[in-house]
Each structure stands twice: as structure tokens, then as C-alpha cells.
């Protein structure tokens, strides 16, 4: 099989997976059984992780699979066990639809003159940064995984921030959900 055929074959698979992904998203958005919707967000994450792999973003796929299909699903289940399992009927609203059409139209208009998908001529591949990351990782950091090198060294400060985001979320959940192991909310007669 020639390299070109292989590339186009992969592109085809990417496209099919993407259509699957969009279908999943539509189903998630439409389902009123939240439990089923949670299951499908798990699937959504797995499909998107598969797509990330095909787009060469192995680390992103790794993370998305672990986070989306693992932690997020478990958190959502935890929430559902404490709230309602079904979404209630609601009227169709026009305004959000208009907003979405507007935003989406703007974005599509903006992408038309972007470089083609996968083109080597795109500015982001031509900027010296791309070269520096590949060769610099080899020479100065000396690690095979470029993503790890960029993540932890070149842009290590972003990763510091990222860890702080997780920390902030944990503090937030601590403060919001606070007192653990409540058997029931205590209800007394006073007003706040």
C-alpha cells in the first residue's frame, strides 16, 4: 500500500469517526434521560480520543480517555445520584438557536481562508517554534517525547498553572460541598 493511499484511507476513517462523534453529540444533546446521556458522554470522549490518536495527538488522546471516560463519567454519576435522573420537558427556544447560527456562521466564514487541513505550509508549521521544539527536544532536553519536553520544560510554567487549576478546583469542591457524610440536610425553621 502506498503512503498516499494510506494517508487518504486514514483521512476517510477520520471523517467517519468524526461523523460518529457529531452523531453522539446530537444524541447527548437530545436525550432526556440524563443517565443515558452520561453514558453517551463517555462514548463521546472515547470517540474523540480515537480521533485525537488519528490526528497524531497521542498524549491528548491519552488524557481525554482517562479524564472524559473515567473521571468525568464518575463525577457525573455522583451528581446524578444526588439530583434528578431525568431532564424535564421544556419549550423550544428560538433565541439560542439564532445565537448559535450566528456564531457558527462567523466561525465557518473565518475558517474558509485557513490553510488546508494537514498542509505543511500552514504558518504554525513554518514558524521557527516548530523546528525548535523538534530539534531542541532532541539536543537540549534529550527526550524522545516532544510533547513531554515542551509541556514540562519549554512551557513548564503553563503546566504549573494547569496544576494550580486542578488545585483550585479541589479547593472549590471542598468549599462548596464542605461537610462530608451528611446523612440529611438539617432543616430548622429560621430564615437565613
Amino acid at each position, binding site marked *: 500500500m502506498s503512503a498516499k493511499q494510506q494517508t487518504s484511507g486514514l483521512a476517510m476513517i477520520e471523517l467517519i469517526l468524526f461523523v460518529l462523534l457529531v452523531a453522539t453529540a446530537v444524541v447527548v444533546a437530545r436525550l432526556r434521560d440524563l443517565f443515558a446521556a452520561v453514558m453517551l458522554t463517555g462514548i463521546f470522549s472515547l470517540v474523540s480520543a480515537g480521533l485525537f490518536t488519528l490526528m497524531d495527538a497521542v498524549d491528548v488522546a491519552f488524557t481525554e480517555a482517562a479524564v472524559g471516560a473515567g473521571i468525568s463519567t464518575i463525577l457525573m454519576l455522583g451528581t446524578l445520584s444526588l439530583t434528578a435522573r431525568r431532564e424535564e420537558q421544556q419549550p423550544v427556544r428560538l433565541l439560542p438557536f439564532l445565537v448559535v447560527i450566528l456564531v457558527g456562521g*462567523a*466561525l465557518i*466564514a*473565518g*475558517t*474558509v*481562508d*485557513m*490553510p488546508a487541513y494537514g498542509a505543511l505550509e*500552514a*504558518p*504554525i*508549521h*513554518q*514558524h*521557527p*517554534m*516548530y523546528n*525548535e*521544539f523538534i530539534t*531542541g527536544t532532541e539536543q537540549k532536553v534529550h527526550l524522545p517525547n516532544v510533547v513531554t519536553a515542551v509541556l514540562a*520544560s*519549554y*512551557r*513548564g*510554567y*503553563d503546566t*504549573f*498553572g*494547569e496544576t*494550580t*487549576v486542578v*488545585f*483550585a*478546583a479541589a*479547593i*472549590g469542591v*471542598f*468549599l*462548596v460541598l*464542605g461537610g462530608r457524610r451528611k446523612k440529611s440536610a438539617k432543616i430548622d425553621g429560621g430564615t*437565613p
Partner: protein
Amino acid sequence: MTAHLPILQVVLPLMAAPLCLLIRNGPATRYLAIGVAWTSLWIACQLLGQVVAEGPISYMLGGWVAPFGIEYRIDAVNAYLLVIVTMIASVVLPFGVDRIPLTVPAGKEYLYNAAFLLCICGLLGISITGDIFNVFVFLEISSLASYTLISLGKGRRALRAAFSYLVMGTVGGTFFLIGVGLLYQATGTLNMADLAERLPASFGARSVVVSFAFLTVGIGIKLAVFPLHQWLPNAYSHAPARVSAFLAATATKVSFYLLLRVFFGIFGVTYVFGTLRAQNLLIPLSLLAMFVGSVAAINQTNIKRLLAYSSIAQIGYMTLGLSMASVDGLTGGIVHLFNHALMKGGLFLVVACVGYRLGSDRVEDWSGVGRRMPWTMAAFVVGGLSLIGVPGTVGFVSKWYLVLGAINRGWTLVAPLILLSSLLAVVYVWRIIEIAWFRQAPAGAKREEAPLSMLVPTWVLIGATLYFGFHTDLTVGVARQAAQALLGGTP
């Protein structure tokens, strides 16, 4: 060590937050936070002095050269902002320092202080960085911390306010991310200086226009620019008093700075106002914000909500100054940023003082409060006058420059409109003053001033509005330098 001041500015509060978790003791972390805030203020002043004397400072994180690594870049604009944020933090944190246990969930004070420190660190991180993706990261740190802090407010409405802020804020953050992505694909870089250099080559591309729009809308949501402001009144009126004082004085200011940076530092004044003609949209929106905000403020029955709507109007002044794109207008906008931080912070602290004694933020319950808490209410009067823009207060200075900018630009219609909206401010400020001073207090009310630990910080801010109302050289001088730096195109 002075070479490392830029990074210490952010890392100090950041590292103090996990320390709070190790200490696990309310009062100890409280004083730790205050110490950190004061040290940060000192660092910020040092940095400002350095910048004014020697020009922009650049600090390469990890020792990687600029476009490859992340760069901290401090010029007059963000040094100014660092001072504002740290100053407000160092005044708000000691506010009611001996009474915090009453307002924070029991046993969780160390977490509360950690969240506060993270919020400060996020805001400082946004202000100081020269890398646009780094902005996003710190934006999210500060946002997550502020959602948490807002949700701690009294009553269940605080939860809803925090949640809708979370949804709006995340959508705004994601819009910002889309904008950054489009910029990145057009230029291949994330460093702001590098962006400014490479962007003109692709100004013709539609993706750059769309990216500009997305960045503006994303920041606009965080800034609560007029049609995107819905989250703000709820968030500020239901948050704990100290938190609303801090956020009202800093969070929107930092967002405004970000807008300035994107407009002038990245896209450049000729592109934004010459090619895209952003002023055609911005000026009407700013004017609308000024009037809608003020009119809504007049109709409020809750004082925090009133002040929140007034904030929306004041943000209108700032964006108006920005859309003038002249040295005078920008100076007005930047000075107003500083001044508004002082007076809104002060006013929210007054509300906190009164709320502490009265337990109510409703306008009706304030009748006769002037005689019960004269010092506190005197502070409110001064702050209110400044909000109106009476000469001798800081509010006058910034409005003066805005009017000057409008006249210089030849916008004869805008100048009277600024004055007219100030008249609206008179209406809502006077309403409070009238109720507080000239109505009878309910029977049995005795004179009880707010505790000193609350009164002193309040008066520090209010006193500053008076001080800077007379000594304008410092604020206006730096603001003018900042405005020139922005218009000169050097990021």
C-alpha cells in the same frame, strides 16, 4: 533577587495557597494571606518604579528565549495594574480581620483564604504575562477561585449566581481560546510581542477578523460589557461582602486591561480602529452601558445590586475611553480603571460594614443609618460623590479626561452624554444618602459604629479617592505613559 521580582509577584500568592492547606488553621492562614498581599504590593511598587525609570522588563520563564518559552513582560500598563490588584488585595484582606469566622463556613477558613490567594494569583498572572495562552491558564485559575468565593455568599441565590457565572465565564473563556487558536493558526506564535510583529502580514485574512471578534466577545463576557453583563449583578450582589469588594475592584479591571492589551498590544490601533472600525460598535455600546446601567441602578432595592449595575455603567466609561483611541481618551480610561477600583472597592466595603451591623443590604433598611454609623456613612458619601464625579474626587479626574478626549476627537455629542449620565449617578447616589441621613432610624437603634478593623480599610480606600483627587500627577502621569506606550504600538 530583584531580577526575579516579576515571577515572585505571581508565585508568592500561588505557593502560599497550598501552604494554607498544610497549616489548616484559620487565623494563621489569614495572617499569612495578609502578609503575602502586603509583600506583593511592595513587589508591585518596586516593579512600577523600575518600569517607569528604565522601561519594560522582560523575564524568560525556564530560561527559554521568548517565542519558545513563556515570557513575562512588564510595561507601564501592567505594572500599573499590578499595583492596583495588590493594593486592593492588601486593603480587602485585613478588612474585618478579627471577624472573619463569622462570615466564613466553620472550619473551612483556611480553604477560603487559599481560594482568595488563588484568585489574587490568577489576576496577577493575567496582568503580568506576555504569552497569550498563559493568559488563558491564569484566567481560569482566577475564575475558578472566584466562582468558589461567590458561591460562599449567604443564601441559596449565591449558588445560582455562582453557577450562572461559571457557565458564562467558561463560555467566555472558551471563546477566548477559540480566538487564540485562530490567531495562532494565522501566525504560528503565542507570544504577544511576536504576534504583534507577525500579524500585519495576515491582516487581510478573514480568520484574523473572526479571531478578533472572538477574543473581544470572550473578554467582553468576563468584563461584563453591556449586552454580555447579565451574570454580574447576581454575582456581585450575592457574593460575600469582602469578595464582592475585591472582585468589583479588580476582576473587571483586569479584564479591561486584557482588552486593552488585545486591541493595542496585539492587533494595533490602526487595524482595530482604522481597518475594522471597532469604534462604530464600541461607542454606542459604551453609551448604552452608561445609561442602561445607571437607570437600572436607580431602580434597585438592594444596595449591592445597585452598586453592581453602577459598575456596568462605569465599565461603559472605560470602554468609551478605549474606543477614543487617543492619548487623552486612553488616559481617561486607564485612570478611570484605577479610580473605579478605589471607589467601588470602598463603597462595597461600606456596604459590608453596614451589612455587618444591620444584617441587611436592602435600601429601605438603611433608613437612619447615617446617624447610627456616621463614620461609615461619611465614607459612603465621599465614595458616592466620587462616583458622580464631583471635583476634588478621583471620579472627576477621569471624567475630565474622557470629556477632554471626546472634545479633542470632535465628538460633540458624546461629551454632554457623559455629563448626562453623571446626573443619573447623582440620582441613585442621592437616593441612598437621603435614606441614610435624612430618614428616621427605627426605634431603639443606637449608635454603633462598625468595628475598627473594618472601618480603617474602608477609609484607606475612600481616603485614597480624595488623595488622588487632588494629587493627580502620580496616577495621571503613569496612565499617560501607559496610554502612550499602547498607542505607540510597543506591546
